[in-house]
């Protein structure tokens, strides 16, 4: 467990005050956004699954704010905080949850599949563990094109049991690719505790199987998380050495709205974590260091409240995707011509609204950078 205090001192001298305040603000924004999203879900304005970052704000903000402009990040379906922390317009995130054309994925992906190519957020993904090799592939591309950045792959404790995790880390270690695997250990995969899912519950130790450094950090301490992340991203960029960082944190809510979040954990356990609430903890520390007054804290809360409410209003007023566009974004440029000879004898049940031609993707094939925001 990397001790926190020295880190802290180093950081608070290292980080300018406004940066410290920005971290705090992002944490408050995520907390409030998630609370309102939860409420919107119960009002049936959001469908499908909804996985909240409440309780994990320090881990989310500590990791994502340590990225340089060259770095990329991948996340699981529990991805709202990542987009918000990176500065994706709150309204575009909320609009995606509402399934609107103005959403970050134009209403096609919803809560689990946020992304922001411009800010190097390459997606929230729905299959546990399966996107880890994809993140390693992004690191491969950066390395191949001699680009300066590294890739940070956020994954859950439960994901470490997947074969994809093993194959991906072996490839990253073998080919010395610039990536950092951040295991957000919130104690459970749905209702299954780490102890019931992993033969080695100290997950960071698995790094050794790939000759990688692995370490564990207090995921409730945003500065500790940020320091470790920055250091290990540098290691990836400068020394082509991938590594594993395990952040110990907790989710207050259930896995998703269908899960009350009890049954597999005691009220006492939840309470004990609330006593180390990451947002309060950091606010407290800023106050102690006279970087945040009660009025300022009040101000932050108000600003965030207003911003989230505006996002909800924006999402509500935004247009739904047009059903005529069902066949858009399925294939790229060449498909319309290629599929033009397939109609005869087709079942037509699904053609009822299929009159729209295949989309001609705007992006030119020879501008991958532009396309993927590299």
């Amino acid at each position, binding site marked *: 467990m990397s001790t926190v205090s020295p880190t802290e001192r180093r950081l608070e001298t290292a980080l300018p005050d406004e940066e410290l305040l920005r971290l705090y603000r992002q944490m408050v924004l995520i907390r409030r956004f998630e609370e309102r999203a939860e409420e919107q879900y119960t009002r049936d304005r959001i469908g499908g699954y909804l996985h909240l970052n409440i309780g994990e704000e320090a881990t989310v903000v500590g990791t994502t704010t340590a990225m340089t402009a060259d770095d990329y990040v991948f996340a699981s379906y529990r991805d709202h905080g990542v987009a918000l922390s990176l500065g994706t317009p709150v309204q575009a995130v909320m609009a995606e949850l509402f399934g609107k054309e103005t959403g970050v994925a134009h209403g096609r992906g919803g809560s689990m599949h946020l992304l922001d190519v411009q800010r190097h957020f390459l997606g929230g993904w729905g299959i546990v563990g399966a996107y880890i090799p994809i993140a390693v592939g992004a690191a491969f591309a950066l390395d191949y094109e001699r680009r300066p950045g590294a890739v940070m792959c956020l994954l859950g404790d439960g994901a470490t*049991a*997947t074969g994809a995790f093993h194959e991906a880390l072996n490839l990253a270690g073998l080919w010395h690719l610039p990536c950092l695997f951040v295991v957000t250990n919130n104690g459970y995969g749905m209702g299954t505790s780490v102890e019931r899912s992993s033969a080695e519950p100290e997950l960071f130790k698995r790094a050794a199987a790939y000759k990688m450094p692995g370490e564990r950090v207090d995921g409730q301490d945003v500065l500790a998380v940020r320091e470790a992340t920055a250091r290990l991203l540098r290691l990836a960029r400068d020394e082509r050495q991938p590594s594993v960082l395990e952040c110990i944190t907790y989710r207050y809510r259930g896995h998703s709205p269908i899960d009350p979040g009890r049954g597999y954990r005691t009220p006492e356990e939840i309470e004990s974590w609330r006593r180390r609430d990451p947002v309060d903890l950091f606010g407290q520390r800023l106050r102690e260091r006279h970087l945040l007054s009660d009025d300022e804290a009040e101000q932050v809360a108000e600003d965030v409240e207003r911003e989230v409410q505006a996002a909800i209003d924006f999402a509500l007023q935004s247009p739904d995707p047009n059903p005529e566009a069902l066949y858009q974004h399925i294939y790229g440029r060449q498909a319309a011509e290629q599929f033009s000879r397939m*109609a005869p004898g087709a079942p*037509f*049940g*699904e053609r009822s609204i299929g009159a729209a031609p295949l989309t001609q993707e705007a992006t030119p094939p020879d501008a991958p950078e532009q396309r993927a925001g590299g």
Partner: protein
Amino acid sequence: MPQITYRQALQQALREEMARDERVIVMGEEIGEVTLTPSKVTEGLFQEFGAKRVLDTPISEEGFVGLGIGAATLGLRPVLEIMTINFVLVAMDQVINHAAKIRTMFGGELQVPMVIRMNVAQGSQLTAQHSQAFEAWFANTPGLKVVSPTTPYDAKGLMKSAIRDDDPVVFLEGGQYYSERGEVPEADFTVPIGLASVVREGADLTIVSHGYAVRRALRVAERLHGEGIDAEVIDLRSLRPLDVETVVASVRKTHRALCVEQGWPTYGVTAELAARIQRACFADLDAPVERVGGAEVPMPYARPLENAALVNDDKIYGAARQLLVESGMLARGVGAAPADAQPAGGNGRVPAGAAAGAVAG
């Protein structure tokens, strides 16, 4: 007879078979100590049979499906739950290249008496990675059996048959109707694998489908009935073996066949149905076999897009009307076929755009 839900029917079957046979165990993610899996079919089993026989696994579908196979080769009868069919993709090699192959490649010296339960729920905005129906792939695989009960009665009866079967059985459950009720006898009974059921009798048209689409087919049949058309509805119940005899007997009677599936029809279940019917009923058909399926797109999140992509009653109804028109039973234009259900035209040609849209979907 008591009325119980589809979920309870499956629970009963599991409970009864576990009580009857020590070798039956249940395994999967979130199915034991707590049941967070959407199906909640295993609720209570952990409390009743204990951690030894009801096992929560890590997120390792490839691992625990393989583990189930190995246990089965030594005589256990594992019933595995794959939370939703989408996740079996990471265990595909275990199902296709192992469970289905073992008896043959070892010359009959080993067998895999195992049931793999999968929830094939589609819709409710679960989006592209969580809203698929590719059961045709399992049905295409020799060595596997594939069943798809749609009523509580069939759910219990087929589950018992599957557990007692000596081969690997892919057991498809429909998320949309876990809570629907139906009559189920308390007595021990089984429903044979490989036998379809005629769930509605009719003389004018045969609608063949499986899974949730059967529910829709029945509603559409009611609607057609109001218009003086009697549709026969067949619930396949098994996809492999496929009960072609029942389907063919019906189409010989009605001279019209409409095949419906939730999934992507091109290379899907309805393709095999149409191919079989046209061959066995060539002289009996008054019109080509028609098919209705889901839009051929990865499922989008937004509700209006998803609604447009999913099979719905109107699409089935429109296809049925169209079929009746093509076969001369209805005059063109007569009756109220919804605007969105216009046919592709006699020669099946439509503007390239529409074609691409339709099929390239």
